[in-house]
C-alpha cells in the first residue's frame, strides 16, 4: 500500500461529512480494482464473457449494471476484446451518470443528447450504446487536444450517432434543444485519488472555489439548453460540497427545477449533505447522491438528476 500524506485541510473538511473516517482514508490509499463495460454496439455479452473466462479471468458482475464487471486480471487491456472495442475499460462510478437515463433512452432512442464535457468519451460511448446508434449525441469538449482521444474512442467503439464539437459550453448559442444533458463537470477530482495521487499536488480550497464558480455558470447554461421536461445529469468526481451541493443550490435559486431520486440496485449510496459552512441547502438536494470510495470499493462521485419543469 502506498504511503500517502493527505493535507490537514483536506482531512478537516471531510472528517465533518464522511461516515467512517478510518475506512475512508484506508480506501483512498488502495489502488482501484480493474473494471470494464461491455460495448453492446459491437459485442455480444455472453460470448465476450465466455472468452474472457476461458483466458482464466475471474469476473465479478455488478448488481446495479448488467454490463459492468470487475476482474482480478491487471492485463485486461491486453486482450483481443479490448483491441476490438468489445469492452471498454472504465471506472465503475463513471458508468453511473448514463445509467440514470438508460430506461428513457432505450424507450425513445430518437432523442437529442448533449454530453457537455465529453472527453475521453467513456460516458458518451455508453450513451451511444444505450441509444443503439440512433438519435443524436453532441459530444462537446472545450479542450481541443482532448478531442483526439474522444475521436479514437468513438471510432473504436463503433459510435455512429455522435458528433464532437469544441466549444466552451457556457457560450453555446442553442436554446432548449436537448432532451437530455450530461454535465460531468471539470472538478478538483478528489474522488480520483486512488488512481492519481498528483491530484493532491494541485489541491487547494482556492481551486475548489474557482471550479465552483465555473460549475455554477455551466449548470445554469446547460439547464437553459434543455427542452421542457428534459433531464440534466450533473456529476463530479469530487467530495467538495462547493462543487456539488452548492452548485445545485445555485441552480435551484436561479431556475425552476426538481431533482429526482436515484437508485442503483445493490450499490451503497451516501446522502447529499444538508448544509456546509453554515449554509443550509434546499430540501430537493437530498435526492442527489454521494458515492464514497469505502462503501463500494470505487472512486468517489457525486450525481444529481434534475428535471426541467413547466415555467
Amino acid at each position, binding site marked *: 500500500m502506498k504511503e500517502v500524506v493527505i493535507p490537514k485541510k483536506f482531512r478537516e473538511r471531510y472528517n465533518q461529512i464522511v461516515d467512517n473516517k478510518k475506512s475512508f482514508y484506508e480506501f483512498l490509499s488502495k489502488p482501484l480494482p480493474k473494471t470494464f463495460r461491455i460495448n453492446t454496439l459491437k459485442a455480444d455479452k455472453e460470448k465476450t464473457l465466455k472468452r474472457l473466462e476461458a483466458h482464466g479471468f475471474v469476473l465479478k458482475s455488478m448488481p446495479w449494471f448488467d454490463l459492468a464487471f470487475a476482474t482480478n486480471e491487471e492485463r485486461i487491456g491486453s486482450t*483481443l476484446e479490448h483491441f476490438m472495442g468489445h469492452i471498454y475499460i472504465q471506472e465503475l462510478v463513471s458508468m453511473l451518470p448514463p445509467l440514470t437515463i438508460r430506461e428513457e433512452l432505450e424507450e425513445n432512442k430518437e432523442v437529442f443528447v448533449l454530453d457537455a464535457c465529453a472527453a475521453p468519451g467513456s460516458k458518451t460511448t455508453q450513451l451511444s450504446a444505450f441509444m443503439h446508434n440512433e438519435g443524436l449525441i453532441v459530444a462537446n469538449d472545450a479542450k481541443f487536444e482532448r478531442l483526439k482521444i474522444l475521436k479514437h474512442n468513438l471510432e473504436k467503439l463503433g459510435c455512429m450517432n455522435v458528433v464532437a464539437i469544441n466549444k466552451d459550453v457556457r457560450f453555446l448559442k442553442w436554446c432548449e434543444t436537448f432532451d437530455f444533458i450530461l454535465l460531468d463537470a471539470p472538478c478538483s477530482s478528489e474522488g480520483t485519488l486512488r488512481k492519481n495521487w498528483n491530484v493532491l499536488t494541485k489541491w487547494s480550497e482556492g481551486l475548489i472555489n474557482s471550479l465552483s464558480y465555473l460549475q455554477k455558470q455551466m449548470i445554469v447554461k446547460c439547464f437553459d439548453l434543455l427542452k421542457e421536461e428534459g433531464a440534466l445529469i450533473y456529476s463530479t468526481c469530487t467530495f467538495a460540497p462547493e462543487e456539488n451541493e452548492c452548485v445545485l443550490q445555485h441552480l435551484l435559486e436561479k431556475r425552476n427545477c426538481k431533482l429526482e431520486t436515484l437508485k442503483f440496485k445493490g450499490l451503497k449510496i451516501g446522502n447529499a449533505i444538508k448544509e456546509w459552512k453554515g449554509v443550509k441547502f434546499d430540501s430537493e438536494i437530498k435526492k442527489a447522491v454521494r458515492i464514497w470510495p469505502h462503501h463500494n470499493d470505487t472512486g468517489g462521485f457525486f450525481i444529481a438528476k434534475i428535471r426541467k419543469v413547466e415555467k
Partner: protein
Amino acid sequence: MKLRVIEKNERKRILDFLEERFGLKRNIFSNLLFLSNPKGKVFAVNRNVAEFAKENEIACLSLPFVRMNVNIKPTSVMLQFFGNYATKNVIDLEKKEAVEFIKGSDIFLSSSECSDGYVILKYQDFVLGCGLLKNGKIKNMLPKAKRMPVEFL
C-alpha cells in the same frame, strides 16, 4: 470540419466497390448516410448526425468509412463493424499472425485465393481490420494509434 452529404453517384461508387470487392450487399448500409470532408474521407452516420452536421461547425465525428480519391480505401474501423458480412477477399489468420497484425506488422502469405487489392483480415469471428495484398504480402493498414500488443487472443 467542413462536411457535405455525398452525391448519389459517389454513394453508388462506394457501394459498388464494397459489393464487388467483398460481397458486402448494399442493403447492409441502407440506413446510413455518408458525409465527406474536403480530403475525401467519408464518414457513415445516421440521419440526425447528417442534419446536424449540415448546420453546425463540428470538430470530428465517427464512423470513418472509406477514403475516396482515385481509388476507394475501406477503413479498418468500418470493416470491424461490417466485415463479418463479407463473402470474398477475406483472409483468416492464425493466432500468431493475428498477434503480429494487431501489433502493426505486415503479413506474408505462401498462398491465397484472394486477388491483389484490399483484403479483410479475420481471426476466428473477429474482423481485425484492413490489409493491402500484393504479391503475397499483406501491407498492414491498421492506423498506428490502433495498433497494440495483445497477450490474450
